[in-house]
């Protein structure tokens, strides 16, 4: 990779947009730089399931010719953006990292993909994930295991591990992920970048392959807070094709982003600093709290008493919804169909048995069990009641503070294979992120330090529903006072 290319791929999204708008670089230059970066490091990182270099160069050239012709361009014009492979892009393979969708090409694009294109972005490949977004390490992909760019013997987190690793490894400046229980924030934390899970209903889920419909939400990955705000701005807002996407005005997330919040109250839940939290992670998070104190923020001691029950609640709600959502994969209209002859029920069961991987089967089974006659009251309905108690905890917390701060994940990135044989241990790596989805509130992970062996650590900030402006501004306050977001992994060069 040339040094000019290398200098470009290290830049933040807003710096690249600035250079495009000033005419200092062309979209084709960016496309070539990021493709060169992929040529160099994708074999080690394996972030992408699909990367059509020619289609990317063509889209970039098209963007440049529009700019040259003086056409009015969108805010992301010419910028490459990678897309998690559970979002439909018309005519482009969309697999959810599952064998059951091998070769599937959607006949339509997700609303988020249409909005990216309307904003002028250049779609830059489809990224790896845990199959159907079920997992916390990206090891559940049926195709490949994505590696953490900071240490390729380790996982990037999950389920949006490909999208996180693509940005962290400077293979793309921005990417889209989806977050059902932490699948944006946890990999952002483990990869040393920014990842935002917006409020439920802020971004359309039309064309996002459903995992747990009442929890799923699409959001951005970026090197810095401004990048996430930029991408959120392009994605947020009502979509008549998703009835859960709220119809209310979208604020200008960039307008006051750099303005510190006066009198900020930062809540710290004691439950987030208990057993299981790595001491180096705790140290970095406490240092981040000191950064807020030094800027005049008040630290408020709060409590999330339902926190110990969040993982159990999540694994009933999410699996129940998944067992229903994934019923559509039956080998009739699209996807894998068994070669073995049999009746219709056998065809369903064999196609699904052959097409789904172990974790997906496990979750469909758990969800079916929780919804089955004789168990639905004890498991599913009880989990929905505890879910309300979790929401009430947050309502109380946000009457006492503006944002809730804590670790995003209990440890830094673990080794490939370390937890893959113990599903429950894997589930517990989402312990701090899961309540956010159950309550439908907003959450962000930002870099706040490194372990002694050079692995990134993330600070999670959570805010009330539709409080993204405040959340992003609070995140930016920490970012302005630190330089963690400017670090790049050694393999970038």
């Amino acid at each position, binding site marked *: 990779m040339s040094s000019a290319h290398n200098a470009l791929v290290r830049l933040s999204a807003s710096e690249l947009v600035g250079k495009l708008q000033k005419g200092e670089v062309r979209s084709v230059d960016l496309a070539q730089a990021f493709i060169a970066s992929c040529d160099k490091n994708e074999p080690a990182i394996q972030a992408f399931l699909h990367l059509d270099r020619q289609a990317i160069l063509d889209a970039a050239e098209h963007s440049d010719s529009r700019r040259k012709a003086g056409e009015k361009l969108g805010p992301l014009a010419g910028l490459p953006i990678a897309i998690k492979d559970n979002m439909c892009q018309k005519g482009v393979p969309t697999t959810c990292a599952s064998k059951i969708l091998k070769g599937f*090409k959607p*006949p*339509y694009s997700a609303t988020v993909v249409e909005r990216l294109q309307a904003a002028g972005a250049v779609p830059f490949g489809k990224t790896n994930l845990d199959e159907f977004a079920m997992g916390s390490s990206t090891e559940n992909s049926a195709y490949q295991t994505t590696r953490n760019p900071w240490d390729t013997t380790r996982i990037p987190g999950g389920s949006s591990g490909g999208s996180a690793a693509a940005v962290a490894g400077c293979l793309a400046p921005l990417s889209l992920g989806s977050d059902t229980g932490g699948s944006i924030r946890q990999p952002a934390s483990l990869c040393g970048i920014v990842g935002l899970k917006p409020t*439920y*209903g802020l971004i359309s889920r039309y064309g996002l392959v459903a995992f747990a419909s*009442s929890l799923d939400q699409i959001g951005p990955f970026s090197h810095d807070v401004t990048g996430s705000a930029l991408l959120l701005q392009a994605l947020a807002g009502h979509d*008549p094709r998703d*009835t*859960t996407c*709220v119809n209310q005005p979208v604020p200008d997330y960039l307008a006051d982003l750099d303005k510190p919040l006066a009198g900020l109250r930062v809540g710290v839940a004691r439950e987030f600093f208990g057993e299981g939290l790595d001491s180096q992670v705790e140290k970095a998070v406490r240092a981040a709290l000191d950064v807020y104190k030094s800027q005049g923020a008040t630290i408020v001691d709060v409590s999330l008493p*339902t926190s*110990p*029950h969040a*993982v*159990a*609640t999540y*694994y*009933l709600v999410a699996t129940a919804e998944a*067992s229903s959502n994934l019923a559509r994969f*039956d080998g*009739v209209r*699209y996807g894998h*169909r068994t070669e073995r002859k*049999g*009746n*219709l*029920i*056998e*065809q369903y*069961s*064999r196609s*699904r*048995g*052959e097409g*789904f991987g*172990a974790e997906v*089967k*496990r979750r469909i*089974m*758990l969800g*079916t*069990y929780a919804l089955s006659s004789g168990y639905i009251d004890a*498991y599913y*309905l*009880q*989990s*929905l*009641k*505890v*879910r*309300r*108690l979790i*929401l009430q905890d947050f309502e109380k917390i946000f009457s006492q503070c503006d944002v809730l701060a804590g670790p995003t994940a209990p440890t830094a990135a673990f080794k490939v294979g370390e937890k893959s044989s113990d*599903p*429950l241990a894997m*589930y517990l790596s989402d312990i701090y992120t899961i309540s956010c989805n*159950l309550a*439908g*509130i907003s959450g962000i992970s930002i870099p706040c330090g490194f372990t002694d062996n050079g692995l990134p650590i993330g600070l999670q900030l959570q805010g009330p*529903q539709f409080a993204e402006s405040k959340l992003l501004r609070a995140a930016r306050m920490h970012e302005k006072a630190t330089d963690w977001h400017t670090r790049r992994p050694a393999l970038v060069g």
Partner: protein
Amino acid sequence: MSLELDQVRWVAHLSRLELSEQELSSLGGQLASIVKYVDQLRAVNTEGVEPMAHALDLVNVLRDDAIVPSLPVSEALANAPARVGDHFAVPAVLD
């Protein structure tokens, strides 16, 4: 709460998942330990608490009953594993 093999087999049937004997036994063990973990929720006092299926107070949305273009048949069938004419082909359901 332990999961008997017959119970695992029944849940697999309800889930429309054909599983090998080996999968049935390994999944049975894993599900038993997960179910044991989620059993902690039984001890939470939820008396008088309304179940919460959704995070937002949303009402149903209806669109105008207007004709809009739909997916052309050729595109709708493009991913079909098997087709007969303009239809998805499946094994006979009725004798």
